[in-house]
């Protein structure tokens, strides 16, 4: 049986065109963009084109894009770069309890010297705008809120959030847009976002490359020192193959129709599981309120981990907890934040779709899921 990959929020399979672009940059245009010669220029042009492409996609200017080694670095740069440059203006920073570890753990590391506030979320994973308003003050220099939650698919009301943050001077709104790019309308400037991070491998691009958008005139300080690449904000020889692949993936980003198709697959998957499998519950937002690619479901009595391995025996790939944290023993901070019952926290599965999934695949997944759950409930 062919594999069915429903772990696209963890990472995606690179499109063949992406692989070709990467290979070409590795074997033909392999020079260092900083080299003076013709070959260096050819590599520089690849980076330049890619920057323009990503800027067009986000509807921002090319010189507001900085390439990084991925989402984690982009988030670190956004937060550490801001607190380094705005420390004279205040010492409060605000984030949410359901951020990805690449944001949350940076905030935690700053607790000693900063007044750090963590926003609660409701059972759908949405923040409370009133609480945000309450936390915001003249001392606040940074607010980090993710656009789409990686575990639940919750979409935050960014335009309302930025209306609140815009009331203050010397305050940046940083948005982790890693799960948003290509899944929802995501245009940072129009949404009033100052800084945002994106990543290539979530959109069928290569791993090890991401980017930071920082609106013109944003004062950010670098976290690495080196030569002057990326305006000195992110020194280091450009990952030209990765950047070339990223640009190709942007070319192939989901169309409106494809996004609608993902929503329909998600509807089929969720609705049928909920009606046909006893003891199943959907966590987080209602199907169409969340992102098109993520559905988080609990199955009473069955540890998510066992179900993951069980489905993998039939070449069906899903995940439990966030992919980066699913091998840690501690509980999942996102599921805890939305108040899932204790005994269901380790019994949840995240299904995450891509434009490449088909209805037939979803059909097979449901059949296999029913089989496995019946079998496992008998044993455990």
């Amino acid at each position, binding site marked *: 049986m062919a594999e069915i990959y429903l772990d696209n929020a963890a990472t995606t399979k690179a499109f063949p065109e992406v692989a070709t672009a990467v290979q070409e940059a590795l074997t033909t245009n392999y020079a260092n963009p900083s080299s003076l010669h013709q070959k260096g220029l050819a590599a520089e042009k690849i980076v330049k084109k890619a920057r323009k492409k990503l800027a067009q996609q986000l509807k921002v200017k090319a010189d507001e894009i900085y390439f990084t080694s991925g989402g984690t670095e982009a988030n670190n740069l956004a937060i550490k770069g801001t607190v380094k440059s705005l420390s004279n203006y205040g010492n409060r920073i605000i984030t949410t309890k359901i951020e990805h570890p690449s944001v949350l753990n940076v905030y935690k590391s700053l607790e000693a010297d900063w007044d750090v506030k963590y926003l609660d979320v409701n059972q759908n994973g949405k923040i409370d705008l009133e609480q945000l308003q309450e936390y915001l003050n003249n001392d606040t220099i940074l607010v980090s809120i993710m656009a789409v939650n990686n575990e639940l698919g919750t979409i935050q009301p960014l335009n309302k959030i930025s209306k609140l943050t815009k009331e203050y001077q010397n305050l940046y709104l940083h948005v982790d847009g890693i799960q948003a790019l290509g899944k929802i309308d995501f245009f940072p400037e129009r949404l009033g976002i100052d800084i945002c991070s994106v990543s290539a491998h979530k959109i069928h691009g290569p791993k090890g490359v991401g980017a930071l958008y920082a609106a013109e005139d944003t004062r950010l300080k670098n976290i690495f020192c080196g030569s002057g690449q990326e305006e000195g904000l992110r020194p280091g020889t450009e990952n030209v193959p990765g950047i070339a692949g990223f640009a190709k993936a942007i070319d192939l980003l989901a169309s409106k129709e494809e996004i609608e198709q993902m929503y329909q697959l998600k509807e089929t998957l969720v609705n049928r599981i909920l009606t046909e499998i006893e003891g199943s519950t959907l966590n987080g937002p209602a199907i169409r309120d969340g992102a098109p690619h993520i559905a988080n479901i609990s199955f009473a009595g069955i540890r998510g*981990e*066992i*179900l*993951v*391995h069980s489905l*993998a025996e039939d070449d069906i790939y899903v995940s439990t907890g966030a992919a980066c944290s699913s*091998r*840690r023993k501690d509980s999942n901070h996102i599921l805890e934040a939305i108040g899932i019952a204790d005994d269901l926290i380790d019994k949840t599965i995240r299904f995450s779709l891509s434009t490449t999934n088909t209805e037939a695949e979803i059909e097979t997944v449901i059949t296999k899921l029913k089989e496995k759950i019946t079998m496992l409930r008998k*044993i455990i």
Partner: protein
Amino acid sequence: MDNLFLIRYGEIGIKGNNRYKFEDKLIENIEESLKELGAKPIVYKTFGRIFVETDLATEDVLKKLGDVFGIVGICPAQKAALDVENIKEEALKLVEEELEATAKEPLLFRITTNRSNKSFTLDTMELNRELGAYLLENTPDGALGVDLEDFDLELTAEIRDQQAYIYSQDKQGLGGLPVGTSDKAGLMLSGGIDSPVAGWLAMKRGVEITPIYFHTPPFTSERAKEKVIDLAEQLARYQPELKLHVVNFTAVQTAINEHCHADLITLVMRRQMIKIAQRITKNRGGKALVSGESIAQVASQTLDSLQVTNQIAELPILRPLIAFDKEEIINKAREIGTYKLSTKPAQDCCTVFVPDTPETHPEMEQITASEENLEVEELITEAIENAEIIEL
């Protein structure tokens, strides 16, 4: 061959008529161990000493032989002819090297002579004196000093029938007995901290181990199996050839869960595992099982529990850690390089199938009653036949 090492071994020197077997095994293990570095060393023995000649760098040899059981000390040595002048020259070279490597002034030294060749022209005391005087005369003033008690450097001269050897370094070896001199045993290896240490301790006493791991997909992950392979690989440092047996236990586990009382499943499971491990071990000519249990560490390791699990065994179950505290086991695991691997998170089936209220004082009748409807003979045979063997 550029470098010479004199290998000291202790305990195996006193094993009477079997001594040559121990020595030959140790020589074989040394050869195997250095072969992994891509070298073909010359290894030979003379009375009470094994010599290794090789082109490998001294540091590499010391590190590698530091993992061979049976070695008490490893001394990088210089050869000299049975001639006083030659011995003096070689000794001086060694001392000059030592002086270059130290900042201490004066470097206090003593000379120890072992003279098994009684026909050598000088006796022990005479050679000590002559050598000492020669070294003092031929090094810069104040660089060396003699102190027989509180010395920084002990220069040993061994005067043997064909050859003299001079050395100053004596790196401590692992001790124990050469692996393979005490027969074979099966090791019940999980991904935890204890069982690799138990296996290592058995190896230390010369036992050649065959690790056996129970894999229970989908309840335990492929990553858990990978972790056990990594652990076995680490143990393979200490044994020339190691064959990890991976037994798929899912069918047996499923039967246990269906037919046995929930509070007893851990014990029944352990009994079936022992049964399987025992058969594999016997098939390979093994004479015992090794397990990482320590009294009362968990519910299945109370004396009552050990008693009911023991009853299914025909082979003795060796439990080298039986009186170790967890802290002691962890320290040992760190020492032998298994701790970090063991603590990588990955489920093993002991943690998946833990009853809510495990029985800590089981009686045999309970177990017998619980196993009454358990028919796993065929499943066990099948599991053994299909065991995956991974050579490390």
